[in-house]
């Protein structure tokens, strides 16, 4: 008689926060709802603006942690300025170590030249060689050239020095307008990677109204991202 040891699936952390086209925000919040994930915690920081949200009488902290089975989610409703982005990344790393997270996937958006808004593509970037295979087996094109800034860059910088491999999925999007259409490709790609079933019919029905509803968050996000663009860089002028 053979006794085989049950292998438990590895713990995966998904991260989403407001950035280009609000792709990360739409994708992660849709997954939380669709998978029926339960909130298990929140992340606080003394420099966060004192903000709480109230939804159906429930008080919500802007940065929340959800979990279902082996899938963990950290979602922020606030965009991060350059000062907070690094601390946010460090908090995630601390959380990952404490909860033996073996892989992180961040969802974000990016603008590409000649991208087709009707059929957005998805690109991936990994911090460790071990995740290259996931890109290949899921037909995710590799993000080859470009620059990354803001919270995405902060998390990548922190995690590429750690032992926890991180993947960033970038869906092509309009950077300045809420783009739930682009989040559909991110949702289906995540579902394939995680080997879960996610129905996107609900978000498809609501897309136009979501674009109206999230105008303010989009504006707030652009303002926050522009704070970083306006920061003086240390690179000499000649290299810019």
């Amino acid at each position, binding site marked *: 008689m053979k006794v085989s040891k049950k292998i438990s699936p590895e713990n995966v952390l998904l991260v989403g926060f407001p950035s280009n086209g609000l792709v990360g925000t739409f994708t992660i919040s849709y997954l939380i709802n669709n998978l029926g*994930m339960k909130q298990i915690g929140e992340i606080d920081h003394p420099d966060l603006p004192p903000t709480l949200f109230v939804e159906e009488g429930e008080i919500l902290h*802007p940065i929340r942690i*959800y979990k279902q089975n082996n899938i963990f989610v950290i979602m922020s409703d606030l965009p991060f300025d350059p000062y907070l982005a690094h601390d946010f990344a460090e908090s995630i790393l601390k959380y990952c170590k404490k909860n033996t997270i073996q892989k992180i996937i961040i969802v974000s958006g990016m603008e590409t030249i000649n991208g087709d808004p009707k059929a957005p593509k998805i690109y991936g970037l990994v911090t460790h060689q071990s995740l290259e295979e996931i890109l290949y087996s899921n037909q995710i094109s590799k993000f080859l050239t470009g620059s990354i800034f803001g919270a995405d860059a902060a998390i990548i910088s922190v995690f590429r020095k750690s032992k926890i491999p991180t993947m960033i999925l970038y869906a092509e999007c309009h950077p*300045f*307008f809420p783009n739930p259409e682009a989040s559909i490709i991110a949702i289906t790609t995540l579902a394939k990677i995680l080997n879960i079933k996610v129905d996107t019919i609900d*978000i498809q029905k609501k897309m*136009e*109204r979501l*674009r*109206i509803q999230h105008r303010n968050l989009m504006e707030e996000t652009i303002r926050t991202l522009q704070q970083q663009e306006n920061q003086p860089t240390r690179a000499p002028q000649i290299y810019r």
Partner: protein
Amino acid sequence: MIENTTKEFEIAITSSIDSIFNDDIESQILSPLSCLREYGTHWLLEFDLPLVNKEDIKITFDEDSISVEAKLKETYSEEKLGKKTKFEYFKKSIILPDKIDNNTSAKFENGRLKIIIPKKISNHKIKIE
């Protein structure tokens, strides 16, 4: 007219709680998002106009400003701070950093209005000594 009460995903994206504050509630007018980008030969002015049909958009311009008005194909409703508000239109005016050329063109695709404004090229030459 179809009425749609927007109910966000159960786990709401909550930061947009004050999104109605830039809108004209009395006149039922929403302020659309817009962005202006500069390219070598032209300016690209874009408006995000979801829930709008192309034939319901009116674009007007004077010397240095462009106004866009559009009727929504469905009433858009939001319930914020205990008050239900309904909107029927988008409306916004943008002042441009340049005078508007008569060859300005517009395109509407996927609920996004793109207005391409060619830059005025002056023929004043600068002599190199």
